[in-house]
């Protein structure tokens, strides 16, 4: 037996194709309540800490609803505070997981440094996004732009939170493997960053549907993400170290990220790094 859609071999008795997911038997039992109710309106969120942090669940499952609220300028203040809170709480937790594995003072420093990097980079770049989107004629208010970017930052932190158990396990069971730690975190931060960017892109797209400015705004978002990356790289360079136990909070100021990358590259190419 083969699948009518993708042609994959089907095991006996199977009701769905394992490779493309098409149902084999057309007569599906209709009485089951589906998991994916399309537009299920979420219950309103409470005002306590738990209610505020339930924005995490909303950003994951009811993104369309949140973006619609932003579009219609509903509860913008509430969303801004809650998204920022979610971003800070989740990144404090991830920083703690990393800091605990490094040990020493870093247990205290990393939970401060991580939200610091995320939030301050955003605050430095936020005016650029707002002013340029206004210049391009997007018509978004500062509050709307803020909430969208806070939401994207929260998305990054939530992803970090979801991978925190994996990070903890690898860092805890491979003590002292400094390069492995760095590599692991680079991969996880790349994934988290990708989810943040994807939220930003989607929100900006849905805020500008049926507007002639959409292509311009899309290009702006692309450039702005690069800008955030450049500023974020320098910000995290400034606050290093993260994976080495030190007593000082940050290293003495000196150099910058981009010169350091070029230097490392040059050393590596000239063979001195080996």
């Amino acid at each position, binding site marked *: 037996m083969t699948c009518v859609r993708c042609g994959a071999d089907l095991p006996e008795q*199977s009701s769905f194709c394992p490779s493309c997911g098409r149902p084999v038997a057309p007569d599906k*039992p209709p009485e089951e309540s589906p*998991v994916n109710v*399309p537009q299920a309106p979420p219950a309103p969120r409470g005002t306590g800490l738990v209610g505020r942090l339930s924005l995490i669940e909303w950003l994951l*499952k009811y993104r369309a609803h949140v973006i619609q609220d932003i579009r219609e300028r509903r509860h913008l203040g509430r969303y801004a505070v809650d998204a920022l809170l979610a971003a800070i709480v989740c990144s404090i937790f991830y920083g703690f997981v990393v800091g605990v594995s490094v040990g020493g003072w870093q247990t205290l420093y990393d939970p401060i440094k991580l939200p610091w990097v995320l939030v301050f980079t955003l605050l430095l770049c936020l005016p650029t996004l707002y002013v340029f989107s206004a210049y391009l004629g997007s018509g978004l208010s500062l509050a709307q732009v803020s909430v969208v970017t806070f939401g994207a930052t929260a998305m990054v932190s939530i992803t970090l939170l979801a991978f925190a158990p994996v990070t*903890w396990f690898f860092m805890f069971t491979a003590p002292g493997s400094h390069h492995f730690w760095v590599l692991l975190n680079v991969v996880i931060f790349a994934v988290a960053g990708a989810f943040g960017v994807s939220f930003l892109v989607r929100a900006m797209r849905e805020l500008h549907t049926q507007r002639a400015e959409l292509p311009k705004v899309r290009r702006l978002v692309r450039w702005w993400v690069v800008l955030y990356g450049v500023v974020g790289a320098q910000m995290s360079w400034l606050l290093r170290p993260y994976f080495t136990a030190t007593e000082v909070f940050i290293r003495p100021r000196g150099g910058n990220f981009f010169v350091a990358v070029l230097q490392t590259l040059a050393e590596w190419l000239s063979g001195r790094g080996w």
Partner: protein
Amino acid sequence: MARTGAPAQVRALLPLGGVVGSLFHRRAELFAALRSDAAARALVLRMTAYVVLFAGAYGLVIGIYAGGWQVVYDLVKLPWVLLATLALSAASLYLLNALAGARMSWAQTIAVVLTGLLATVTVLLALLPVVAFLMFSGDRDYYFAVFINVVAFAIAGWCGARFAMEATAAAHEDERTRGRCLAVMRWWMAVYGLVGMQMAWLLRPYFRQADVFIRPLGEGGSVFEALARLVWKVLVAGWF
């Protein structure tokens, strides 16, 4: 499925006497039950118990082969590797599923994975007589024992992965969500595999006697560095 009657129906879905029958022959019913949160909750407990039981039984036989305290250690280690890996990586699957547009509860998320794990250990248990015969009949060759177990785990893991894909496909009715969740499952299995590799490596040895349950941490970093060293030693250093 009615919320109140879920546990009773689940008992009927996966009876201890007929796990193979209900897991493989009547899989459509089992997959359909994953769509309800209440049934998924009841299924999680039951499937976890079966995974512990089946993987423990397999571990017991490996332990008998190794001898000594390893009988007890392997009995614990095998279910531990499978389930602790799930515990560590469940949050990432929950996140990825939610981003793919599926509104699955924690119980449903874990139940889908457990369906795959249960299929894995069931197949593993089916291979056990052959594996045990091959291990115990000839000379006690360590590398041969490792080799046939790796083969058995590869076969069982492959079946389990396919089964988990089938369960994922059946858990979602919306065509678009289903496609995305299948892609998510494929990626997440890589995460599970990487965490599982480190977990399994951490808990070694399995096939020879050891005085301690696990080795002290820090004896060489992660499994990936160990593999890299091994590849280096075999492929590069061997030439000089």
